[in-house]
């Protein structure tokens, strides 16, 4: 664990000095402040207006930041010729991969806490608690996409390729995924059951995050008008989905690296 602890701290230190992360954190803070102030002027309840607006903002911005933050976890080290240096430390490949992911998730969490923290401070006193509830799920959302970025970084040869794959993944999972499901429903003329569609919505962390947070702010019945109440999975299922993304993808990254040892 000695290597893991050192690597977590090293990654965290390196990322919080990253100009790109600093710029995005400031941008997130400004946008979250803008949303909160606008919502305050438009409605009395932060939970009713600010929360959903911040969910929309975070579900767009946080996956992008996380993917970019994770896109060079492996191929960046490979390009600097330091991947071998890390893998020759007295630790397993898995320990190295997970430590790098955790260090970057911590740096991303700082960005999320700063952005949403400003919104919490600017919100009405009564709505602050509702906004604080956004913090942990938003960190989970970031961790899931950072894990995806890490996997992409292990299969891409160069950081530029990994960055393109990360941006494409963002468009696919954040913008086109729900549209694709809608298209699937139309094309198949309802051949897919609502359970299957809700399962597919929840399988995407961006979708799961939106469904969970919207449910938090309006309650499951709030979806009835949209006929999407079934999208909200049981708590143990949603926990499993988060674990699969956040732990499963770095585990696949570890296996990918192990495979590359014998077939470079």
């Amino acid at each position, binding site marked *: 664990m*000695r290597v893991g602890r050192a690597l977590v701290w090293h990654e965290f230190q390196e990322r919080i000095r*990253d100009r790109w992360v600093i710029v995005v954190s400031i941008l997130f803070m400004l946008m979250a402040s803008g949303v909160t102030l606008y919502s305050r002027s438009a409605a009395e309840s932060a939970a009713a207006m600010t929360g959903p607006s911040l969910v929309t903002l975070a579900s767009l911005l946080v996956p992008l930041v996380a993917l970019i933050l994770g896109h060079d976890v492996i191929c960046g080290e490979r390009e600097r010729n*330091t991947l071998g240096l890390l893998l020759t*430390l*007295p630790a397993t490949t898995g320990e190295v991969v997970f430590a790098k992911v955790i260090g970057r998730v911590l740096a991303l969490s700082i960005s999320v806490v700063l952005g949403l923290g400003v919104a919490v401070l600017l919100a009405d006193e009564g709505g602050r608690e509702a906004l604080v509830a956004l913090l942990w799920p938003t960190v989970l959302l970031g961790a899931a996409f950072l894990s995806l970025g890490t996997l992409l970084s292990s299969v891409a040869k160069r950081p530029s390729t990994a960055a393109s794959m990360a941006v494409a993944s963002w468009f696919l999972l954040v913008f086109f995924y729900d549209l694709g499901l809608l298209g699937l429903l139309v094309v198949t003329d309802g051949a897919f059951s609502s359970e299957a569609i809700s399962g597919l919505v929840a399988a995407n962390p961006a979708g799961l995050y939106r469904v969970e947070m919207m449910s938090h702010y309006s309650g499951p019945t709030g979806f009835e008008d949209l006929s999407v109440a079934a999208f909200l999975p049981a708590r143990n299922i949603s926990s499993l989905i988060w674990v699969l993304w956040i732990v499963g993808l770095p585990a696949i990254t570890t296996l990918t690296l192990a495979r590359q*040892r014998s*077939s470079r």
Partner: protein
Amino acid sequence: MKSISLRDVSVRFGSVQALDEVSVDLVPGEVTMLAGPNGSGKSTLMGVLLGLVRPNSGGVVLDGEENRTGRWLKERLGYLPEAVAFAPNLSGYQVLRFFAAARGVDTARIGAVLENVQLADAASRAVRGYSRGMIQRLGLAVAVLSEPQLLVLDEPTGGLDQAGISVLWRIIEEQKERGGTILMASHDLVLMEKRVHQVVMLAGGKLRAKGTPEELRARTMLPLRVHFSLDPAYPTVDRFLEAIENLGDCVPQQNGLKVVTEIAPDRLLALLSLQPKFNGTVAGIRIEEPGFDAVYESVLKVEP
């Protein structure tokens, strides 16, 4: 100190046979150099030793026993990759502090190591402001931070100026004095020749030759170049030149008061025996051995 060997290592990447039953013994306190053209298998062999490449057969042997986990070696390893780079946002000190923490080294040692690689003044500066040579010296500092038993250096002279090369020699000498084992890959054959105990030459994934530089030089039988300085008082040297030509396979060339000829090593004594006969004509003799790059080319040119 355990003896470290690579035994019958074969590695195949798809249809490419990267290494074909290569065996190398690394001796504590000695320097082994891997030499060979690009794609000869040097990096792959190093990768097997470092645990970065899984061999199809063979592997690392420690004190005669197969090294199954690699953990023992990882704990005692120092590695400098080729053309290494470090996180540009961190200072040299922070980079070393990370590796010290990861390897369980007391942070008090960082200052001494920075001093040793002549980076103490730049320790607090971000790596992005370092020159190529400074980054290479930082890489050397990372490699020797934990006083490893096995030091693996991949093209260690890359980017180093004369002062940096002096730092490298000092580090290698210190490692040898501690009884540590050193394996390095380098294209700077002439520069390295005097510093290494064993040269392992690879080509096409096969072991072409191994031995001390002297052994390899002797094996190639490349001609020696002999320089005679002539005494100005004896301007006529025709008989001397004729005597050299009579030895056979020698074509002496005169340039003013200098005569130069090439001769096979086994004929050297015969050539030198001419000197007493022409004592007044020959004022001095200098024997020039072929460069190690010529030895290298000769070894790789001949099929085993």
